[in-house]
């Protein structure tokens, strides 16, 4: 494998695919799928062929292909594959454009991961960002504008960080930034800018405002955005903090219980994000918004791990990012399947669909187990690692916030489960069919890793270990089924055996008819239900909880931004009044401007 092949397969091939699939009309997602599959095969084949490359195509592109890149590319490749598979039967309007843009975003993501200098990083980041913008634009201009504002903000932050590095080193290469030319106080600015810039993509509070809107667009795309592209933020922060700056520089800002003072605020921000995202997710009635806030919350966990920066925390963060890629894409696809079949977005308008769409229900169930961190799924291990990392350092704010957020995750997961799949089936949904085969296949592909990595976390912990050692950090202590930490660890084999025993006991009890089937009518209305009322209580689902939180919910970052913007809009309306339309007034303004400039100039000299 040489540099040009690498470039050709991971960058040019998706670009060609993007071009071709534009003319594919209905079959565009299939064409795109083929190209993604080819990249995936090469990704599999080339595992281990790691190294740095330079491609000279007029401009010099410095590429690197290492285990970190590989790890993140694996996530993105799988997620986009299943998203496109889902899109095959999703009857999107202008499917050609959709596939083209998805592949462009994929190209950008690959480029961001592969690049070894800041310039190509920025270029590919923009390619990715703009294709996401156009994809959101397909649904709503308003949502796209919100995304655009924050996307541009992110780009500014990133380019400011890059600019400071360039000022000191005179080069865009990562290696030159490592060479120690940059003083540590400059690193503080660089890292803050880069973390905020990449953090926009991860939607950490208070830069999360775009996310609930962007995540309300087409489901297959949102699955890719939440599962795949938001991981680029994780990658960027991981790379800039631990690969480019390194632990030595982070610790030079001072430490707090062994955690860098630069990382700690971001860990705290991550914990707050996890907490706030979860609380907001609980009260959403729109399934898309619920999942969006849930996504914000879950990425908050990842941010905690990235901020803490111990090996355990980073391992947990990478593992959780990996899990999140799968279960959140799966959830978005499951929600997409339900929306595709029913045409409804509100949880309170659905219900009982588990009887009509059993496979979807099954897949979503597994995803929710992973999301809530229920023991048995890989989501449990990653969250457990993060908790232990916080508890290990005795962080009394971060650890409780995360634990509360985890309880909150149960609450909204239950809302999804109950509100959509359980309860009484609505009259108009009596004829709903199971989701089409490609959609089920897409969800199945995403479900498998969640199961496999829950039993044998050792596989993925092996990769994560390689990532950590490649970056120059201490590895995690793990075996095939277990990982160890200073305060315990977790053994998945024990969990599985316990689960199996309990499961068979439960099955035995069920078979022995100890369980009594209760009629739903008895359950709800003491045996006196009017037949016309649907037996579903998803309306005002967590009302008591919401009333408890009402004093807090009136503070909103959204509204703060709106007030801020309204201030400017009003101000500009006032300023607009000076344009009277009379040319003589403009001449007078010109004279006044002259006067002011001359006075300032005279005063300066």
């Amino acid at each position, binding site marked *: 494998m040489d540099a040009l092949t690498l470039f050709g397969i991971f960058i040019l091939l998706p670009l060609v695919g993007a071009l071709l699939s534009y003319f594919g009309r209905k079959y565009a997602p299939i064409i795109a799928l083929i190209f993604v599959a080819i990249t995936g095969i090469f990704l599999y084949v080339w595992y281990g062929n790691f190294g740095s490359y330079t491609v000279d195509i007029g401009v010099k592109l410095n590429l690197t292909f290492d285990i970190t890149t590989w790890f993140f590319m694996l996530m993105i490749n799988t997620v986009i594959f299943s998203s496109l598979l889902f899109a095959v039967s999703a009857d999107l309007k202008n499917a050609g454009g959709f596939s083209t843009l998805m592949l462009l975003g994929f190209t950008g993501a690959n480029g961001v991961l592969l690049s070894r200098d800041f310039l190509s990083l920025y270029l590919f980041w923009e390619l990715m960002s703009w294709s996401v913008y156009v994809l959101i634009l397909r649904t709503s201009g308003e949502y796209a504008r919100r995304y655009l504002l924050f996307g541009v903000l992110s780009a500014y932050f990133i380019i400011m960080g890059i600019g400071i590095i360039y000022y000191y080193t005179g080069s865009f290469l990562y290696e030159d930034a490592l060479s120690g030319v940059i003083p540590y106080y400059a690193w503080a600015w660089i890292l803050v800018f880069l973390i905020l810039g990449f953090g926009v993509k991860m939607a950490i509070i208070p830069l999360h405002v775009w996310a609930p809107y962007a995540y309300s667009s087409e489901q297959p795309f949102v699955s890719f955005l939440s599962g795949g592209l938001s991981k680029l933020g994780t990658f960027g922060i991981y790379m800039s903090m631990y690969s480019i700056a390194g632990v030595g520089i982070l610790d030079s800002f001072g430490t707090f219980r062994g955690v860098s003072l630069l990382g700690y605020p971001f860990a705290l921000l991550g914990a707050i994000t996890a907490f706030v995202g979860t609380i907001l997710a609980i009260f959403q009635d729109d399934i898309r918004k619920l999942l969006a806030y849930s996504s914000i919350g879950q990425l908050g966990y990842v941010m905690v791990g990235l901020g803490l920066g111990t090996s355990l925390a980073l391992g947990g963060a990478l593992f959780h990012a990996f899990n999140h890629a799968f279960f959140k894409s799966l959830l978005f696809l499951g929600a997409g399947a339900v929306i595709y079949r029913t045409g409804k977005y509100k949880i309170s308008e659905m219900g009982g669909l588990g009887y009509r769409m059993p496979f979807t229900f099954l897949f979503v169930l597994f995803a929710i187990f992973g999301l809530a961190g229920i023991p048995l799924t890989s989501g449990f291990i990653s969250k457990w690692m993060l908790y232990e990392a916080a508890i290990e350092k005795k962080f009394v704010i971060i650890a409780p916030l995360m634990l509360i957020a985890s309880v909150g995750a149960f609450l909204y997961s239950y809302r999804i489960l109950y509100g959509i799949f359980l309860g009484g089936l609505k009259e108009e949904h009596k004829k709903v069919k199971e989701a089409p085969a490609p959609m089920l296949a897409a969800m199945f592909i995403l479900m498998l890793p969640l199961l496999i990595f829950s039993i044998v976390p050792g596989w993925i912990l092996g990769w994560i270990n390689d990532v950590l050692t490649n970056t120059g950090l201490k590895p995690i202590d793990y075996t095939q089924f277990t990982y160890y930490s200073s305060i315990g660890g977790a053994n998945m084999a024990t969990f599985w055996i316990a689960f199996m025993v309990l499961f068979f006991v439960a099955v035995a009890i069920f078979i022995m008819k100890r369980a009594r089937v209760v009629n739903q009518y008895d359950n709800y209305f003491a045996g006196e239900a009017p037949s016309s009322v649907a037996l579903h209580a998803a309306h005002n689902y967590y009302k008591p909880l919401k009333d408890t939180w009402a004093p807090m919910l009136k503070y909103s970052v959204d509204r703060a931004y709106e007030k801020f913007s309204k201030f400017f809009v009003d101000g500009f309306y006032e300023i607009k009044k000076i344009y009277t339309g009379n040319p003589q007034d403009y001449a*007078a303004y010109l*004279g*006044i401007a*002259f*006067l002011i400039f*001359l*006075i300032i*100039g*005279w005063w300066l*000299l």
Partner: protein
Amino acid sequence: MKRVLALTLAILLFIVFAMAFAKIPFGEKMSNYPDYYNPIENQTSNMSLPQHYLTYGKNDTGATNMVTAVVVDYRGFDTLGEVTVLFLASTGVGSLMYVEDKVKRKVRRSNAVVETGSKLLFGFIILFGAYIFIHGHLTPGGGFPGGAVIASSFLLLYLAYPKFHAEHKKLNVSESLAGLTFVIVGLLGLIIAGYFLYNFLPFGLPTYLFSAGVIPVIYVAIGVKVGSELTGIVDAMMGVRE
């Protein structure tokens, strides 16, 4: 109210402008720059731009009048642009003053003294204008003043003879030919020496009429062009008369 405001603004501006310009010396010798490398002369020098023009202008261009040297040779391309602005302005006047229904105004005939005098003077003024722009590189003057003088001679005719009308076609032809000459001379420089408006003719002896290469050619062209354009403007502003 507005008057008072404008007056206040004007007085304030006057004070501030005066304060600003009080720092610029008047009538003092041109100051030198710090030493810098001059790639054209291939030596270090401390001359400001006007000093350079005044020192090397005679050798560089062959013209005696340094203003002409700057306008036509050093900054010849700018002058081409300025002539274009002039052309656009005169075209604009012509098109704005054009009227479909020609309402002819009655104009009183002027007396015999004026008519005879203007007939007599017309030739002399034209001759003077031509002299000014032909000798632009030797004596004060050049294409711009010469053209203006020629236009003012036509103005005299317009004032003296109510029915006088310069023929638009002739004006257009002379103006276009002049513009064409300017551009062709520039292009010839491009062909011969590789620079637009390069002074490719021999310089000859200074203070002689046939000296300074292409400068007289271009200045004559500018003179004709400015003259015909300004005449066109006057003609358009006069309107149609009887």
